[in-house]
């Protein structure tokens, strides 16, 4: 299973969601995408976007001022 990292730091919502959306459009199903962000809003928005677009959030965590969302790309 391949793993890809996306740097979405210093972007405010919805830009991190757009970056995730555009990145996922280029990835094969099953790929794991780790989005690193600084806007706490991503903890709601990226999982919401994943739910309606058929992708699975594996993990969300915050590390000091960073918010990390790990996603498995769906079909």
């Amino acid at each position, binding site marked *: 299973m391949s793993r890809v990292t996306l740097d979405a730091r210093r972007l405010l919502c919805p830009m991190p969601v757009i970056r995730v959306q555009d990145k996922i459009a280029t990835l094969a199903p099953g790929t794991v995408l780790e989005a690193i962000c600084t806007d706490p*809003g991503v903890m709601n928005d990226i999982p919401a976007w994943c739910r309606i677009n058929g992708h699975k959030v594996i993990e969300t965590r915050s590390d000091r001022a960073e918010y990390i969302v790990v996603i498995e790309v769906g079909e």
Partner: protein
Amino acid sequence: MTEQRKAVALISGGLDSLLAAKVIQEQGIHVEGINFYTGFCVEGHTHAIRKKDQKKSKRNNALWVAEQLGIKLHIVDIVEEYKDIVFNPKHGYGANLNPCLDCKIFMVSKALEWIRKKDFDFIITGEVIGQRPMSQRKETMPVVSGESGAEDLLLRPLCGKNLPQTLPEREGWVERGGLYDFSGRSRKPQMALAAKFGFEDYAQPAGGCCFLTDAQYSVKLADLWRARGSKQYEMDDIMLLKVGRHLRPAPHYKVIIAREEGEGNFLQGYRKQFVSIKTISHAGPLALIDGEPTAADIELAARLVARYSQGRDADLVELEVMDREGTSYPLKVEPIKPHEIPQEWHI
């Protein structure tokens, strides 16, 4: 077996677009949502920046609407293309710097491009005749459908009965009897329809989600254009107009002073792009100077920053001035007195 038709709904996150999409879903049409990010839909940004707002819900209403409807949502970044709409709106501005009619035409034209690329059949919006004084009037409905190029591929389910038939109706994909005849500024029909569909929790943003409809924001944007001698902006400009107190002591520079810790943290990220000032001897805000300040300008800016620090009543306040290269030096100044700040400096 008849082919299932597909529509894309412009989803702002408000009640009207939620209802419009639901009405068409109820007719067996496959609906997906599209949401355009202009850079001015910054409702959530201040919540992300300001510490006092960080406990507020940061729900993105467009995503929330899509989830309620069980539809996909495509968020499209139109920041760069949108600049031309803000700079040169063919139909002019509204009460502030809001180019609402041109904006609607542009978004529908982008939706038209999208349905052609994705092989969808028509476009839905939540427009209601008479709902908005500039962009949603009986006379502007054909302007939006005509100038966007969408023509009769644009269906407005909430007021469709008051408008000429569209292609989806003529082709029998959508029953005209299932559309509505809402008009005017009253929200009661929409609220009744929301209740019928079982929607209880929905966003009702006053003036929409666009900061160009905000008078204070528009004044700051107009000031930026005046100072630069032309209409231009970058994303960072749009963001910084939302943050801090803005004071312009002279045409060639302005001072942006954080109002609280969250804003200070946000401005911190811009210290390599601007000359910045921070108090040392007393607790106080971080400030940026936008423009090309002289040494005397920096001293005046420092006196302003001192005024908004805990040392406002002290004889002298020590501050640190940092240039764009990261070189810093200390500066001691007398805090400026309130009566020395002309009202016109406040943007």
